[in-house]
């Protein structure tokens, strides 16, 4: 796999020091303001929420995953959430709600 993004982050600021004078280079790269949502890899509570993005077989895979997890005694939300389409962003309200979820959110299983 590719290197994690943290190794690749481009410089925020470059300074040119030629022989005659110094000049700041104009940063061409737009950055998120405020900071983008941070992903927490370790959930705070052992609970799983499933989100289907409607690619083919995604819902079937999620239903199967829910069954296996439940058999292993893990708490899984009964309702599988859905977003309209794999190629469009999640509605803001859904994103805001999921960003408060202390358990694990599993979304966008690809076919």
């Amino acid at each position, binding site marked *: 796999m590719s290197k994690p993004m943290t190794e690749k982050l481009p410089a925020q600021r470059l300074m040119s020091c030629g022989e005659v004078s110094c*000049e700041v280079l104009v940063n061409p790269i737009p950055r998120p303001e405020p900071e983008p949502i941070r992903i927490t890899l370790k959930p705070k509570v052992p609970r799983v929420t499933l989100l289907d993005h409607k690619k083919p077989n995604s819902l079937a895979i999620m239903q199967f995953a829910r069954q296996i997890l439940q058999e292993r005694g893990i708490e899984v939300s009964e309702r599988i959430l859905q977003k309209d389409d794999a190629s469009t962003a999640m509605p803001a309200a859904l994103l805001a709600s999921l960003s408060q979820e202390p358990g694990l959110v599993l979304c966008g299983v690809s076919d």
Partner: protein
Amino acid sequence: MSHGVLDDIEKCMDSGWTDGLPVIPPYGSLVDPMLEALGWQASDVVGVIAEQSIKVRAEQVAATAVMAGCKPGYAPVLRALAQAILDPLFNVSGVEVTTGGASVLVIVSGPVVAALDFEHEANAMGGANRRINATVGRFAQMVRLFCGRGGGVLESHGTIGHPGRLSFCIAEHPETAWGPYHTQFGLAAEASAVTIMASEGPNSCNNHYSSTGAGILDTIGDCMMHYGQTAWYYRSSGFLVAIAPDHMDLVKRDFTREAARQYLYENARRQTDDLVKVGRIAIPPLEFAEVEFGAMRTPLKFIEQLSFVECGATGGRFSAVVPRWVGSRNVVCKQIEGL
């Protein structure tokens, strides 16, 4: 002599301010004239990518244009192009991250082609080795990259990608048989325009011995429906078809643009059950995919997903099919003002 600029180029290369090739360092003394030509103030917001909480400012667009090697004289094209890329309809973040390895395909049409001396004949679909084609195409890919991976937010997952992700710009002939490209998207024939779509690379279509327009279209249609076309996926965004002059001489005799589109829509079809058999349709299929077993199936979801561009040199009997990325279904066409 002073090699300060060379050091700055290396600094850009080492710091992620590049697409992998040498850039012109974005000194203020170069970015300012570009901004002026673009008609923007440094802090003007050119576009917003809401999902990423990103506002793209004019200064960043101008710096990217300088870095790609564009001249301020290209600004009327670049202004419309930046607005097109940042139009939410285009879904630029999706284009950058997809496993589809898509590029921002740029199509320039109308009087601007001759006015700014774009190459629209030899190697018009790429590698014409002319500055304006190469750098305008590169600018579009760099905006995509800098808004996505460049900002440290997204990572590109292109399974295989294609070379157009460095630069992919097609300029249409100033004189066309079927009318300028942008008239397919509602602009007036006399306008100049820049149009973008997310795409894979061009699939070349050779045919040396057909003597009819239908033979050429059958060849193009067969390419559109080979089993590997992404368009058989449950989503489809269609195709750009580029017809070069030697093929156009035959096709225009028998077909208007509308008739050619209708011909391909009706004839470039395959048995749905064969597509299932080779693994191109999910079982069970999604409702959205509208799968009808036993019927002949088109790789187009709507006939409007097919458009034609006229470009290329005489002397060779090639045309091309450019498959569009399925996750950005909108073609964004902007008029170029202030030429």
